[in-house]
C-alpha cells in the first residue's frame, strides 16, 4: 500500500514538474467576450477605428484614431455615464501614450461625458516593450468599467538604443521618465535600511532573545527592566544617538529636496467636457421593430423603419455593434457584411421598412447573441449616407427572438 502511494506521489510530482516547466501560452486577448452581450452592444459603439501601423520599433510612433459613441440605449441598471476615459488596453505598458485628443482638444485625463455623446479620438503611442502585443482602445466609464474597442496585434521591435522616454521639464532640463528620481529613491532606501539594520542588530546580536522571556514575564509591562539588565543606560544612549541621526537625516532630506527641486506643484486634475464632435446635420431617423437570431445558421435579422427627412436619397452603409462593423453586402468583405433588403436608396421624404440580415459565426464566437440571458436585445449603430456624402449614425435597438422560441 505504501509503495503504491509513493508511486502515485511520484507520478503527481512529475506531472506538476512538467506543467511548471512548460512555457506558458501568451495571453492573446483581454477577456472582452466575458462581458455580457447587452453591456457590449448597448453602452458604447466604436467605428472607424484605424491603426497607423502593425509594426513599430521601440520609440517609434503608432497612431490610433476612431470614433466612440455613448449610446442612447445605455442600460438603466448602470450608473448614469458622467465621467469617462478613453485610453488603451494592452498587456501592461508595452506602449506609452504620447498624445491624446478627443474631439480635437488635448485630453490627458478623464472627460465629462453624456448619453448620446460622440467622441472622436486620436492617440499617438510609442512602442516600448519588445514583443507581439494585442492592443485595444478602451472607453472606461465610471460605474460601468472598461468597454473595449476593436483590437489589433502590434509588433514592437527592438531599436538600437533601447527605449528611453525623454521629456522636457518646464525648468528646461530633460529627464527620462523611465528612471527619473531613482537616484534619490535608491539612496534613501539604502540609508534607511542601513540605519534600520543597525538599530535591529544592536538589540538582537549581543543580547539573547528567547531567554529574556522568563524575566519579562515577571515584571510589569510599563518598565524597561533596567534594574535587571534588560535595557541598560548604554542602550538608551545608543538609541538616542541613532534617533538624533534619524531626525538629522529627515531634516537634511527636506532641506536637500527644497534646494534641488525648487519648482514643484501638486498633481493636477484636468477633467473637462469636450466640445461636441463635428457631425453632419440630421437627415434620417431609424427604429428597429423586431429582431431574430437563428443559432443553426448564425443569422441575425432585424426589421428597421427608416425615414429620410433630408433632401437627398440616403442608403445604409453599415451596421456597427460592440467592436464589430458589418458593411453592406456590396462593400463588405467576404466574411463580414449585412444584407439590406430592399437595397435601393431611400428617397427624400420616404419612410421604408428595411430588413437587415447578417450571417456570421462571430455572433456565437464573440458571445454577442444573449440567447438564454435575461436581456435578449440587439443594439447597434446604423450608418446612413446621402448622395452628397453626409453621414448620420443612428442607434437602434430591438428585443431578439431566438428562432427556436419563435
Amino acid at each position, binding site marked *: 500500500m505504501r509503495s503504491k502511494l509513493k508511486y502515485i506521489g511520484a507520478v503527481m510530482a512529475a506531472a506538476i514538474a512538467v506543467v511548471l516547466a512548460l512555457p506558458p501560452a501568451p495571453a492573446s486577448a483581454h477577456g472582452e467576450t466575458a462581458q455580457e452581450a447587452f453591456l457590449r452592444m448597448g453602452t458604447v459603439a466604436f467605428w472607424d477605428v484605424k491603426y497607423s501601423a502593425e509594426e513599430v520599433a521601440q520609440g517609434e510612433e503608432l497612431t490610433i484614431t476612431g470614433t466612440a459613441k455613448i449610446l442612447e440605449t445605455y442600460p438603466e441598471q448602470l450608473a448614469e455615464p458622467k465621467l469617462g476615459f478613453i485610453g*488603451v488596453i494592452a498587456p501592461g505598458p508595452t506602449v506609452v501614450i504620447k498624445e491624446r485628443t478627443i474631439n480635437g482638444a*488635448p485630453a490627458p485625463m478623464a472627460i465629462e461625458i453624456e448619453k448620446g455623446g460622440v467622441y472622436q479620438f486620436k492617440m499617438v503611442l510609442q512602442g516600448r516593450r519588445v514583443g507581439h502585443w494585442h492592443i485595444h482602445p478602451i472607453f*472606461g466609464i465610471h460605474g460601468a468599467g472598461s468597454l473595449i474597442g476593436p483590437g489589433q496585434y502590434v509588433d514592437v521591435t527592438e531599436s538600437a538604443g533601447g527605449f528611453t522616454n525623454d521629456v522636457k521639464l518646464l525648468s528646461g532640463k530633460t529627464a527620462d521618465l523611465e528612471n527619473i528620481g531613482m537616484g534619490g529613491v535608491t539612496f*534613501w532606501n539604502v540609508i534607511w*535600511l542601513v540605519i534600520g539594520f543597525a538599530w535591529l542588530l544592536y538589540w538582537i546580536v549581543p543580547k539573547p532573545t528567547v531567554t529574556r522571556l522568563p*524575566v519579562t514575564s515577571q515584571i510589569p509591562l510599563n518598565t524597561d527592566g533596567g534594574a535587571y539588565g534588560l535595557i541598560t543606560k548604554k542602550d538608551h544612549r545608543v538609541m538616542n544617538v541613532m534617533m538624533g541621526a534619524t531626525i538629522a537625516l529627515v531634516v537634511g532630506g527636506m532641506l536637500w529636496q527644497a534646494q534641488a527641486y525648487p519648482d514643484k506643484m501638486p498633481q493636477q486634475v484636468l477633467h473637462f467636457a469636450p466640445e461636441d464632435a463635428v457631425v453632419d446635420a440630421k437627415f434620417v431617423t431609424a427604429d428597429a421593430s423586431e429582431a431574430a437570431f437563428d443559432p443553426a445558421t448564425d443569422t441575425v435579422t432585424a426589421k428597421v423603419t427608416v425615414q429620410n427627412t433630408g433632401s437627398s436619397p440616403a442608403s445604409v452603409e453599415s451596421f456597427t455593434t460592440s467592436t464589430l462593423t458589418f458593411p453592406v453586402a456590396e462593400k463588405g468583405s467576404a466574411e463580414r457584411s449585412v444584407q439590406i433588403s430592399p437595397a435601393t436608396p431611400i428617397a427624400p421624404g420616404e419612410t421604408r421598412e428595411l430588413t437587415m440580415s447578417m450571417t456570421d459565426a462571430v455572433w456565437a464566437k464573440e458571445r454577442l447573441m444573449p440567447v438564454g440571458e435575461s436581456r435578449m436585445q440587439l443594439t447597434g449603430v446604423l450608418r446612413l449616407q446621402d448622395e452628397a456624402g453626409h453621414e448620420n449614425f443612428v442607434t437602434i435597438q430591438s428585443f431578439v427572438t431566438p428562432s427556436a422560441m419563435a
Partner: protein
Amino acid sequence: MSATALAPESEERTQALRKLLNRRYTFIDRKWDIVFWVTAAFVVAAAADITKLLFAGDWDFWTDWKDRQWWPMVTPFAVIIIPSALQYIQWLAWRMPTGAVYTAISMTIASWIGRIFNWDMFGGFPLAFVWPVMILAAAIWLDWVLLKTKSFVLTSLVGAFGFALILWFTNYTVLAPYLQPIDWMGLHVTVADVQGIEYVRGQTPEYLRMIEHGSLRTFLGETQYVSLAFGATLAVAGYWVGQAIGRGLAIWPIGRFIKRF
C-alpha cells in the same frame, strides 16, 4: 526559591531576576533566536505588505497617486498596524524596542522584491513609477518613543502622531522630483501625472485616481497640513488596531495554548 514569591521591590528579587537573565539553558541557545528572527520575518513581511496594499494599495503603487491630501491620510494608518502589533509582542516578550523597525525592514525588503519581480520584470512598469513607501525612519521613531516612555498609551499618542509626520517628510524627499512641472500637449502637469498618462494601466482609468481635486480655502488653503493632522490622528487609531491584533490575536491565543499544556 521561585522569583515570583519574592516581594516586587526587594533586592533579593532583583538579583534573582538578574541571574535569571544571564542563565544559560541547556537546550535553548542562540539558534532558537536565529530561528525566530529569520522565520518570523517572512510572516511579518507578508502581513505588513498585505495590510498596506489592502488599505493603501494604489497610493503605494503609483507616483501620480502620491498626492498631498489622500496619501498622507491613508498610508500612515495602513502601515502602522503591523508594526504596532509587533511592537507589543516584542516588548512584552523580550523588552526590546524593535517591533516597528523589524516590521519595517521586513516589509521594505518584501515590497521591493514585489516591485522588482512583479511590477518591473513581469509587468513591465518602470520602478520610477511604482516605488513603494519608505517607513523605516518613522518606525525608528516609533520604537524610540516606546523605549523612552515605556507606555503604549503614550506611544500611540506621541509616537503614532510623529510616525505620520516623519513618514510624510521622508517620502516627500524622494517624491520631490516627480512634482516638477512639465508641459504635456500645452497643459501644465507634474512629472508624476505624465507617468500616469503615458504608462498604460488598462484597468485603472484616470477617473479612479483618488487625489486632491481642489480644496476649499479653509485653513488658508493648506490642504497638506490639514491632511497631515488628520492622517496622524488616523495613525493613532491604526496603532490601536495593531495593538488589538498583537494582544488579541497573537499573545492571548498563544497564552491559552501554553496554559493547556
